[in-house]
């Protein structure tokens, strides 16, 4: 896993209180990791902070899985 993927995983584990094994690229925040819409807002804020990126609302709405988040961040960081 890339450095970005590891850091994303760490944030998800901390914010949602889920087991590390469950945080796979395919895992859906809502369906698999027990997040609600507010948890996703908080996760997006944490990603913005960690990676120094800005994730606009329309982009954030499309981030449904852990993999979506990793992909977005990889595409928007140097």
């Amino acid at each position, binding site marked *: 896993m890339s450095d970005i993927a590891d850091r994303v995983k760490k944030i998800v584990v901390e*914010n949602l*209180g889920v087991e590390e094994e469950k945080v796979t690229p395919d895992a859906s925040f809502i369906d698999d990791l027990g997040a609600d819409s507010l948890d996703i807002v908080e996760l997006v804020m944490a990603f913005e902070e960690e990676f120094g990126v800005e994730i606009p609302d329309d982009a954030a709405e499309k981030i449904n899985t852990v993999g979506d988040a990793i992909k977005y961040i990889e595409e928007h960081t140097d």
Partner: protein
Amino acid sequence: MRRVVVTGLGLVTPLGADVETTWANLIAGKSGIGAITRFDTTGQKCLIAGEVKPADHEYGFDPNKRVDHKVQRQVDPFIIYGIDAAGQAIEDAGLEDMSEELRLRAGCSIGSGIGGLPGIELESVNLHERGPGRVSPHFVHGRLINLISGQVSIKYGLMGPNHAVVTACSTGAHSIGDAARMIRDDDADIMLAGGAEGTINPLGVAGFAQARALNCSMNDRPTEASRPYDKDRDGFVMGEGAGVVVLEEYEHAKARGAKIYAEVVGYGLSGDAYHVTAPHPEGKGAENSMRMALRKAGMGPGDIDYVNAHGTSTMADTIELAAVKRVLGDDLAGASMSSTKSAIGHLLGGAGAVESIFCILAMRDGVVPPTLNLHNPDEGTEGVDLVPLVARKREVRAVLNNSFGFGGTNASLVMKKVD
């Protein structure tokens, strides 16, 4: 008329993370007050408080026991204390597995005096330093006072009345009184009732210190700072924590063979209509509240064996005492009266509930908790058993618990043993 009894207890206090530990420490005469460790007190006038101790302490509190990790991250300490105390009460009452039918008739009335002040303080700084886009999406519902009741109802599936009292330092007593009425009026068969507080943060301590309410003169000897009725008392010491009871309709409790601690028989409420922080100098509001509670209970002054005083360790102590003397008259001579704030500090919105639980345990065990640090009783205390320094064994059949709050709000509860 539907009768209301207490069938479960839960406590998180500066003297313990559960009922029995807190009670044992209280009866042993221990103090839960010390130097503030929660934040850097540089510049504060008051440096001491009754903190709930961390998990690694001898009688510390482990939030992981009953509060989900995710919830812990989102909410203020008062909500965490409240959820845990409610969970303890449910377990104590043997109500972990309620049917849907019962859960429709089970509700919550757990309030707080101030609510999420630490979170408001932090998020306000965050807003100013980093902008509105950095404010947590959990900010609002992690601070709201009714969110103990909300969280507890979600966790345990309680679909009955969902209520939260906000009457400053009377909150805990009003919460129990109001919930008892809901059961009596057939709104519910079971109510989780109580109060919580967690405002040992820079803004909370500074605010009460600026209001000249806190003891700021005994920072070097914290365990001696809360000294109700003593001549040298000089303001209250802030505490934190929660107290929650399970209230249940009597026949319902009996039918399921529940352990019955006590019956809530009288509830009195009044307003001082006088001043925002100072009590009426003649204690009229306090007197009216106590008289109403006794009248509702159908009891006379001679029936009360123990009074858990509001007794905050301020000048108001003598006003309350004078009011108690007028209400109980000569019968006060046969009763004991103490202020447990001497040991745990003032739990503000949690006080009335925590102290109601102490009253119940006094009846259960036949022992009254002490008023610590009462070395030089103030004038007017002569002939009154204020249980100075050490707990005392005595029969306690019925109790009166007083709570008074800023805004001039008063609540009194009368509870008695069930034969």
